């Protein structure tokens, strides 16, 4: 997902799709890059589920699936217990250090 979003042209394609469905030819015009490049980027975006396509006559129309970005947030939030546990260990260690400091002062 990060990799799919990391490319400027792919973000350009997603931006163009924000306005609605587009055929490959229209994306080529919008972005001023070659059709093979547009097709390659669309394949990467399809693989991670960010775009979907349907056939209409001789054209394939691509559309955005922004709901696919939500799992990113869920994935990150699964690390919350680990974040809390690490800070709790740091807290305990700070308390222990200060207690030892007090003892050596006495």
């Amino acid at each position, binding site marked *: 997902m990060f990799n799919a979003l990391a490319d400027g042209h792919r973000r350009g394609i997603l931006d163009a799709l924000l306005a609605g469905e587009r055929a490959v030819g229209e994306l080529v015009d919008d972005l001023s890059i070659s059709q093979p490049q547009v097709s390659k980027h669309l394949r990467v975006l399809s693989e991670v589920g960010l775009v979907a396509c349907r056939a209409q006559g001789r054209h394939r129309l691509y559309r955005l699936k922004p709901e696919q970005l939500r799992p990113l947030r869920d994935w990150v939030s699964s690390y919350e217990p680990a*974040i809390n546990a690490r800070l709790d260990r740091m807290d305990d260690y*700070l308390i222990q250090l200060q207690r030892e400091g007090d003892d050596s002062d006495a």
Partner: protein
Amino acid sequence: MTPNRHGSAVIEYPSNLEIVTTRQFDAPVGLVFDVLTNPDHVIHWFAPFEDTMTVCEIDLRVGGSYHMVFVTSDGAECSFRGTYLEIEQPSRIVSTWLFEGWPDAEAVETVELEEVDGVTTARMNLAFRDQTGRDHMTRTDGQEDSWDKMEDYLLSLTREGRPG
């Protein structure tokens, strides 16, 4: 017995690519900074107790790097590394952050420390960024610009009411 602050970290998500964690410690800011940045201290709290810390290297200067590795009880290796971008002792540390278990997920971590009446508040912002930002690793302006663009972009995609 003093009540402890366990589990009190506040974890927020200002955007899809940003995690902000705020936590208070009953300790002076200088000590908190030291415990965060001195490997002799870090080795005591960074890894879960049942795990073994195998690498704990910190070169605390702008452009210096850090590397932490611990091995979990089931044998999995967790490796974190990064480079320091800004250091203002004892109040601020900015570094790149790469957890090798999260492919592609490189981030910039900003840690800000502030002491009020003997209590130090740590605010840790972990901002994931894209490949464009990685190319500008040594230039803060490039990073922020890239990160801002990514954030605006993701917000525009996830804003409610968008067609699609």
